[in-house]
Structure formats: structure tokens, C-alpha cells
């Protein structure tokens, strides 16, 4: 997969401000224009868009082929559900939803990155981990599988998860509108934070390692550590997405760990654009809208559509929508013969990454 050369994010402050403005407009505009059903639907979009951010960050910027981000989504969701049932107040559970996946990522990442395994192996191991977590949680039916007062419920999942509340007021859970503000507000915040991370020196080194791991090492950076930290950040973001996902329906089941969840988030990033943060959010909304539309007519299975979209983009639009639109926009602005594009550098990069 070719990551666009112009992906260095700190260069496009305009894009950042535009995205931030759009995010704020949606945050405050949606409750005024949508009915309750629509608002709840958009809360789900926001949760999955954050899941997309997680994948977009680790894959597009750190160049780590994590094919099992669903593992962290699920861990976050379950960590929230189990702890909020036990504790009542949602403040600590939200923090746990971020911390538990990060800790898990630290352990898994240590073995992967410090073992110096190949990209293909990282893809397969992360994917396998999520599949096995799915099987593990799926097999926890019965009242003997409980953590504190929370029954894990096996394939039935955990129903009636208490919603978020303002810190210190566990008896006043947020209503649908409140959860919308929490979810969408968190999405905007995480987007800003990730942009800040990428603009920081740490972020530049992460991108530099994606570009040339050997050179980064010879300059004195330890790629294993930077990849591990990026992996943990992405896991924390996915975990928070899982927390919002659990709040969205007040319910969570092992399918959050499932293969199709990992596949979907890969598709969000691929459709939206690898090496961007806006792309994965946009991709999440597009694909989810598509799945909902497909669900309303039962002629075709949604997996078939997802498979076609995935292969279609890999074969025909490998750079994703946002970079394509960006390039078209720049050409329109310039109105001149385009400069010799990044094509040959990109081709070199592609072959380099293919190894």
C-alpha cells in the first residue's frame, strides 16, 4: 500500500482547522437538526469514526499493519461494561476502557516489536489475537463466568450497561443527547490530540520510522520503542471507541472482537485514505451508512458488499478518497499543468514497503 508522500500532517494546518470546524458544527448542529433516532445513529457513527482514527493512526502513520484493532475495541468495551456494572460511577470505567487495551497492547507489542517480526507476521498475529479473544469471550456463558457482579454472558453479551454520567453523579446517567455530546466531543478531542501527537517530535519520529526504519536507527532512535508506544496510543483510542460503542446501545457482545469488525475498520481507512486522519472518520460514516442501507434490503449479505468494496479499492483506488479529492482540489486551484507528481518516489516507496 502506497502511503501518500504528502501525508506529513503538520504541513496542512488549513485542513486541520477545516476538519475541526466541521467537527464542531456537527457536534452542536446534530442535536438541533436530527430526531432522537437519527442522533442515536450518529452516536454510533462517532464511536466507529473513533475506531477508524485508531486504525488510521497505527497503520497510516506508524506503518504498523495491525489487522486486529477489534481486539482493543472489544477490550475497551468490555472493560467499561464490567467495571461500570461493578462501580456505578462511570469515571473510572472510562479510564479503564482506555488503560486496559493499552496495557494489553504493551504486552502484545513487546513480543511483536522486540521480536522484530515481519510486517506480514504482525498483521497475522494481531488478527489471530482478536479471533482468539472472540472465541474466549464467546465461551463465557454461564453464571460462573463473572467479574464482580458483572456476568460476561458468553455469546449473548452483556445487556443493560449503565450509561455515562457526570463524574460523581452515578444516579443521573446521560440521556441520548448527553451521550451524543460525550461521543462526538470525545471524537473531536481525540482527533485534535492525535494531530498534536503527529506534530510533536515523537510523531515526526514515528512517521520517519515508517519511511525508513534503518535510517531512524542509525540516527539513534529505537524503532521498537516508538512502534510500541504508537501501538499503545492506537489501542487506547480503540478502547475509548469501544467504551462509546457500549454506551451507544447499552449492550456489548463478543462480535466487537470479531473478524468482520477488524475488516470493517481496515475498509474505513482504505476507503477514506491511508495516511490521513480525516479519511478514516469519513470512511467509517460512509461504510456504516452503506451497511445500514444494505441491511434494509435482505437480498445481498453485507459481507459480499464489504468484500467488493475492499478489493475494489485495493485494485482501483489504493490511495483512498481523501487524497484523491485533495489532489483534484489542488489541481483545480492551480489550474496549471500539474508538477511532476510524486509518482516515482511513491513507486519506490511502494516497492520498499512491499518487502
Amino acid at each position, binding site marked *: 500500500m502506497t*502511503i501518500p508522500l504528502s501525508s506529513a500532517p503538520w504541513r496542512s494546518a488549513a485542513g486541520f482547522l477545516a476538519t475541526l470546524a466541521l467537527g464542531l458544527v456537527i457536534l452542536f448542529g446534530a442535536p438541533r437538526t436530527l430526531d432522537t433516532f437519527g442522533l442515536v445513529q450518529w452516536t454510533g457513527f462517532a464511536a466507529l469514526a473513533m475506531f477508524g482514527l485508531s486504525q488510521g493512526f497505527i497503520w497510516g502513520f506508524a506503518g504498523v499493519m495491525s489487522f486486529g484493532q477489534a481486539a482493543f475495541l472489544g477490550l475497551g468495551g468490555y472493560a467499561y461494561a464490567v467495571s461500570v456494572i461493578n462501580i456505578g460511577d462511570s469515571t473510572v470505567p472510562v479510564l479503564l476502557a482506555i488503560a486496559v487495551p493499552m496495557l494489553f497492547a504493551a504486552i502484545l507489542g513487546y513480543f511483536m516489536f522486540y521480536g522484530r517480526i515481519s510486517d506480514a507476521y504482525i498483521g497475522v498475529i494481531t488478527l489471530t489475537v482478536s479471533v482468539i479473544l472472540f472465541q474466549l469471550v464467546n465461551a463465557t456463558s454461564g453464571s460462573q463466568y463473572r467479574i464482580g457482579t458483572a456476568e460476561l454472558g458468553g455469546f449473548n453479551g452483556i445487556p443493560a450497561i449503565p450509561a455515562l454520567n457526570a463524574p460523581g453523579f452515578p444516579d443521573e446517567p446521560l440521556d441520548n443527547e448527553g451521550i451524543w455530546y460525550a461521543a462526538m466531543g470525545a471524537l473531536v478531542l481525540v482527533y485534535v490530540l492525535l494531530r498534536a501527537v503527529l506534530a510533536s517530535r515523537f510523531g515526526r*519520529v514515528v512517521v*520517519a520510522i515508517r519511511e525508513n526504519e*534503518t535510517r531512524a536507527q542509525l540516527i*539513534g532512535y529505537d524503532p521498537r520503542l516508538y512502534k510500541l508506544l504508537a501501538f499503545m496510543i492506537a489501542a487506547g483510542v480503540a478502547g475509548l471507541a469501544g467504551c462509546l460503542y457500549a454506551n451507544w446501545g447499552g449492550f456489548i457482545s463478543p462480535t466487537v472482537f470479531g473478524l468482520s469488525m477488524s475488516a470493517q475498520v481496515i475498509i474505513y481507512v482504505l476507503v477514506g485514505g491511508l495516511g490521513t486522519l480525516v479519511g478514516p472518520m469519513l470512511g467509517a460514516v460512509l461504510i456504516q451508512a452503506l451497511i445500514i442501507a444494505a441491511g434494509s434490503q435482505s437480498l445481498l449479505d453485507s459481507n459480499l458488499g464489504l468484500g467488493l468494496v475492499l478489493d475494489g479499492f485495493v485494485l482501483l483506488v489504493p490511495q483512498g478518497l481523501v487524497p484523491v479529492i485533495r489532489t483534484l482540489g489542488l489541481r483545480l486551484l492551480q489550474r496549471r499543468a500539474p508538477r511532476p507528481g*510524486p509518482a516515482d518516489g511513491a513507486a*519506490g*516507496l511502494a516497492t520498499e514497503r512491499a518487502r
Partner: protein
Amino acid sequence: MSAALPPTGLGGAPLRPLIEARGVTMRFGGVTAVAGVDFTLGEVELRCLIGPNGAGKSTFFKILTGQLKPTEGRIALRDTDITGAEPHAIARLGVGIKTQVPNVFNGLSVRENVFVAAGRRKSLARTRAIVDETLTRLSLTGIADRMVGQLAHGQRQWVEIATVLAQEPELILLDEPAAGMTHEEVHRTAALIREINRTHALIVVEHDMPFIRMIAKTVTVFNQGRILVEDSVDAVLADRRVRDVYLGKQAG
């Protein structure tokens, strides 16, 4: 052959070695790429490594920088044993290398390349100062915002040299710095190396003999993984064995 000239500094006084390799051997399966090499380099010394292709020079560089772990032997940088240390750890001790095939961040701009190299554990202001100084020194200011992946081969070589300088190493390894450069660029490179050598130690691998004459004082000749001879540049270039090695390579 390890009877190196006593390393001398600016004042001509003998100094303790900056880098000292003892009995370094590297085997790949049945092939011995480097065989029992003893090598010493003093502070602020400039050394040229020559030898036919496959003599083990680049492999030796990879061992010095930690990209390869030697099968046998020890390497010390001043008082630190760096045998088998990770490349990043060796880099942090002050060793920088320009590799034979340009190793740069293709997807970043020239300035960003240098910034990442300069910025490890330094304040932002200090980093920016190093970046500006390095870009000016290597005449890269004009292309500072171009993507490195879009530059010509020669320019990417300069970018790589810039990243090495920006990391402010004490020992600089240059693997074929003049390869693919124009006549004028070769002269610039030689002048730059002499300038760097006023304050830094360098080891330079090169095939270009006129270039060697421009920069070298002491030359170490590698052949078949061993050190064939180590002497002053004039003595080495007049040495019959050295000519045989190169002629042998040309004939074969």
C-alpha cells in the same frame, strides 16, 4: 598488519584510540566476509578504507554501526564495549553513517529529514539552529521544502550527509560518498570532509583514487575480509600488493 601508525591529533601528540576493533570476524553460513580484523582509529583521525568489491569494507561498517553482530571479536568505542550493541545505542554514543545505498526518509522534506536527525534529546531552539546551520553548510537551503523522494540521486546523497552531520556525531562513517557525483561535487565533498575532519574523526570507504589522494593521510586496504596493508596514502598507492589486488580484480 595491525601495526598502525600511532594516531595523532591536532598537536601531533598520541591520543587514546577512539575506536578499537580486535579480531572482528563475520561469517555468513560458509562465507567469511570479515576475518580477524584488528583496527584502531584515533580521535579526530581521518582514515580511508579501500579494497576491491567484496573485500568486507561495507560489512565492517555494518558491524561498527551495529547493523550486524560480529561472529567473533570485540569492538570498543573509547571505554565502552559496543560489540553487538543495537544500532540506535551505538548512534547515541556518537557514531553516524552514510550508507552505500542512500538511506533517507523519502516521504519527508529535506528540512524534516535533517530535523528528525538533529532533534534527538535537544531543545527545539537548539534543533532549529542545527537544522538551519546544516542546510546552509551543505547548500541545501534552496531545496529545503522539497520531498526527498523526488530528488536526484546526487542530491539525496547530500541530504543523507546532512542528516549524519545534524546528529552531531563524533565519528562519521562515509560509505562511498563520491559515488554518482559530478566532478565538481566530488571536489566539494572532499573539501567538506577535510573541514569536518578538523573537529571529527572519519572513516571513508571509497574506490575513487584521485578522491582518496585529495583527502587521505592514512589508508587501510581490505582484501578478502582481511587487512592487507595499512600505511600512508603514498606508500599504499605505491605498494605492489595493493596494485595486484586491484589489478587482479580488474582482470578477473
